[in-house]
């Protein structure tokens, strides 16, 4: 087999295509409205979509093993609401402690989901649908039936989102750290490669000595951990905690992964692709008002974009397959 040159590999890759799309979108929007092309607008965009961007990483892992998790936004609401209430009733004051509690709750939630999926063989969509109801309801119960924790109740916690380190908001540093850790984790650690192995062929992975059940358990636990982190970020960025926050937001996270080229049947997808996918999802609500398109069109455009991306992907794949066949005939 011919070895592709590094140059061709770069241009042929899906990540490159996505990067081109992102740059094109940037260029077009900036050309129409120069206000878009500024450091502040980009960092604002990232800050407002921090939750989706961080949680897309967990969804990447889940989708790599061929699963799906639609309970994440309920986990987010439960963990975010818990720290919101703890801060409101002044049980805790420390920002770091609040983050740790939120992440601990999230991890526990994810661990439970993982146990049900990996040990009781419940299909991921059904199990996470059940937990979506359960955790959302628990969020309501924690909030004493729908109480809010507003900005005044959150004390110094909400300052986390406004504090800047080296010119960048703490929230953006969290995103960067997460992406860097995951990039190395998925590419160069043994566990990261095992996730890909399980996703490509679970039975082959089992035979070659990988404990598939434990990998699945781990993946959903990681997802829960990131959902807990997302809960803390959500509360600090929007300076409020309410039990119905981010309802339906799990579809945005899944869409970010799908646009980023993560395959739903597992085994395919990269951290870089996910980053670009999340970026495209973040750009749509920010760019539309600047292009003077009514905000009402936002969801339709988002949906059409997802559909177009997956359809183009299939068509490109078909063309590639046909070309490969042609090569064999000759």
């Amino acid at each position, binding site marked *: 087999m011919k070895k592709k040159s590094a140059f061709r590999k770069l241009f042929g890759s899906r990540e490159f295509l996505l990067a081109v799309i992102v740059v094109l979108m940037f260029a077009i929007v900036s050309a129409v409205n120069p206000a878009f092309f500024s450091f502040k607008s980009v960092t604002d965009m990232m800050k407002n979509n921090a939750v989706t961007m961080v949680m897309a990483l967990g969804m990447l892992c889940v989708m790599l093993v061929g699963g*799906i998790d639609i309970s994440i936004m309920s986990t987010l609401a439960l963990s975010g609401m818990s720290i919101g209430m703890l801060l409101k009733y002044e049980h805790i004051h420390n920002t770091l402690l609040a983050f740790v509690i939120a992440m601990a709750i999230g991890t526990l939630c994810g661990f439970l989901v993982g146990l*049900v999926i990996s*040990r*009781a*063989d*419940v*299909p991921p*969509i*059904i*199990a996470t*649908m*059940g*937990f*979506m*109801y*359960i955790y*959302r*309801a*628990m969020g*309501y*119960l924690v909030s004493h*039936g729908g109480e809010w924790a507003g900005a005044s109740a959150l004390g110094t916690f909400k300052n986390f989102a406004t504090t800047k380190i080296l010119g960048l908001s703490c929230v953006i540093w969290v995103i960067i750290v997460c992406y860097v850790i995951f990039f190395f984790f998925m590419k160069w650690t043994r566990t990261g490669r095992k996730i890909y192995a399980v996703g490509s062929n*679970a*039975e082959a992975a089992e035979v070659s000595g990988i404990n598939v059940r434990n990998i699945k358990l781990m993946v959903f636990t990681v997802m829960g951990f990131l959902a807990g982190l997302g809960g803390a970020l959500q509360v600090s960025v929007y300076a409020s905690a309410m*039990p119905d926050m981010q309802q*339906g937001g799990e*579809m945005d996270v*899944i*869409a970010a992964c*799908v646009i980023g080229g993560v395959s*739903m*049947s597992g085994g395919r997808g990269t951290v870089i692709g996910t980053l670009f996918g999340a970026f495209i999802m973040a750009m749509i609500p920010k760019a539309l008002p600047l292009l003077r398109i*009514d905000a*009402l*069109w*936002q*969801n*339709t*455009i*988002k*949906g*059409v974009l*997802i*559909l177009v991306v*997956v*359809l183009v992907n*299939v068509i490109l*794949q078909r063309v590639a397959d046909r070309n490969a066949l042609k090569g064999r005939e000759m």
Partner: protein
Amino acid sequence: MAGKSGRTISNKPESPIKKIIFSWEGILILVLIGVNIFCKWFSEYYNMFNLLRQMPVYLAEVFLMMPMAFILVMGEIDISVGSIACLSATMACIVCNTGAPFIVVILTALAVGTLCGVINATILTNFTELPPMIVTLSTQIIFRGIAEIVLGSGGSISAANTAGFKALGTKVGKVPIILFLVAILAVIFAIILGKSTFGRRVYAIGTNRLTAHYSGIHVQKIRFIIYTVMGLMAGLCALFLVSTSYGANTTTGTGFEMDAIAMAVFGGISSTGGKGNLAGGIISAFIIVCLRVGLGQRNVHAQVILLILGVLLIAAVALPNLIGQLRRAVKKQ
């Protein structure tokens, strides 16, 4: 998940009575009786009259459950139905407000639903590589997005001429029309799924798609029909939604797809395909309706009811699997 279906072949013929009691449907009927006893004890207002009066609000979702059962038996999923219901309800209200006769309103709702179903079906049958989850995820966003555009900045519309919708919500004697319709459709759908050639083909597709294809079943044609019917039923559901609220807004039908899937799965229809029947789905639908009416009468928060639903759903799938694993472990020793 793969290769652990846990099916065993037993040579001993089972007695039919034992088979009925120990089947999933038998357990569900016991649960239904248990839920009714519990609701009677829990709420003093829980009786046949009030049950029939408060039922229609929750029954609209049962329309979605029936075609969803077909889709789940095929091993697929459709999460766009809630949005289809939203779009058809919106269109029905708009047509109703132009003063058109009520039959036109009904036809609009059904036509819009069917059209959305056809769109789903066309994409899914032409691009078979795509998982239905992704396609219906994007159409879910698109259909609700169109409803948002149509509704404009207010985000809601109310039907000015409610006479027709009131007629839909009336009762024959003490039984609401919707219950009759659910019963008739349930029988039709159950017969098609359980007894007809079409239904057996759906099971064949769900068990092994490739084998079904090679044994001469038009897999794509059947998928097309089922997704179209799914849209049609979402339109019907929308009509009854409007008949209870006399209007539509951007959140109409949110989460209905999940409720419909939950009903079907709780009724023993496996989401991995090829297993379950509609009787179980119908019984579980009534368990959920009774539970909602009973708990709702004492002002139990809707979220608590969802909590119970979530636990039931996971238990319904996890327990049989765990029992099967335990049995195998015992047998090995």
